[in-house]
């Protein structure tokens, strides 16, 4: 059981990806977020996780980027910050995304996962849901403990945890034969 008071959601899988950096953008308004995402796109920087809340503070907007491009992304964010007079971006390094599925279509799993990890003093930097899964970013140093706790709490099979095995590379333009 994940929690004594409620029926425990059941998970079928858990995966983690490559190391990430996460840009934290406290209070950035919509136009600034649009401008930054455009700059990141022009630099061909992938965004494995995007959670934008225009104007929200202190719980800010978060952009996850591949760690190999995190300094480039930070530089672009700093540039936008300077030009628009915004609070400087923060870059959280050495993060990793952990994906759990299935979501189950309700708020129960996100709340149960957050509570489970909080008992271990693990606080994901950010969490979001897709149609069928839950993705959170947390410190790489917490990954093993988080995985073990979630596996125990939600009855994951022993072989459910695998590194992400699909990498998608988008080309800057169509190939000649296209």
């Amino acid at each position, binding site marked *: 059981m994940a929690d004594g008071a*409620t029926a425990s959601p059941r998970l079928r899988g858990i995966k983690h990806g490559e190391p990430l950096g996460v840009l934290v953008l406290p209070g950035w308004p919509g136009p600034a977020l649009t401008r930054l995402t455009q700059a990141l796109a022009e630099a061909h920087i992938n965004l494995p996780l*995007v959670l934008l809340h225009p104007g929200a503070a202190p719980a800010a907007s978060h952009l996850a980027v591949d760690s190999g491009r995190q300094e480039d992304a930070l530089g672009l964010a700093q540039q936008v910050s300077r030009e628009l007079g915004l609070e400087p971006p923060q870059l959280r390094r050495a993060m990793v995304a952990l994906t759990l599925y299935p979501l189950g279509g309700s708020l129960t799993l*996100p709340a149960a996962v957050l509570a489970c990890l909080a008992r271990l003093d693990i606080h994901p930097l950010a969490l979001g*849901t897709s149609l069928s899964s839950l993705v959170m970013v947390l410190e790489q140093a917490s990954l093993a403990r988080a995985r073990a706790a979630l596996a125990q709490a939600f009855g994951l099979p022993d072989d459910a945890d695998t590194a992400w095995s699909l990498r998608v590379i988008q080309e800057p333009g*169509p190939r000649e034969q296209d």
Partner: protein
Amino acid sequence: METVAVYFERPLRTYGLEAQAGCRLLEVSCPRERLEDLLAALGALQPPAGLHFCSAAWAGETLSLRACLPVPEAVRVATALAGAGLQPQAPVEASLVHLQGPHFGDRWGVASEALAGLAEAGVEPLGLAGVVHSLFLALPPQDARAGLAGLAKRFRAPDKEV
């Protein structure tokens, strides 16, 4: 073993380019010591409250949880949270656009295309969540039509390719 997919796609293809009316954004701040109460309140809802999408982030010792739900579900959740002493902020009405594509999160330019399309239409989203293959856009209800028109310049759904 790693699988690598390489391709170029403009405009971006997506499943579904529609706005779903009748949604509500809820936000609740929950101190760390009340997290079990939050879980109990949500877990006690039977059937569980249906969810479009949610996001959460910690700010110090306080969790900020945001959820986009159908209005009736939002009412149930807000009532349950209030009953647990966790008062959500004033809800915000929204229309939801849910774009689905293959691995949106692994490709550069997807969020940018969405935000640029909305900006060209004069629409500012209430929130955006790009998670795996889903791109959720919560729009002010009165801007949904204009927002869709802006998005249609950047994204293409299969039924629009005929």
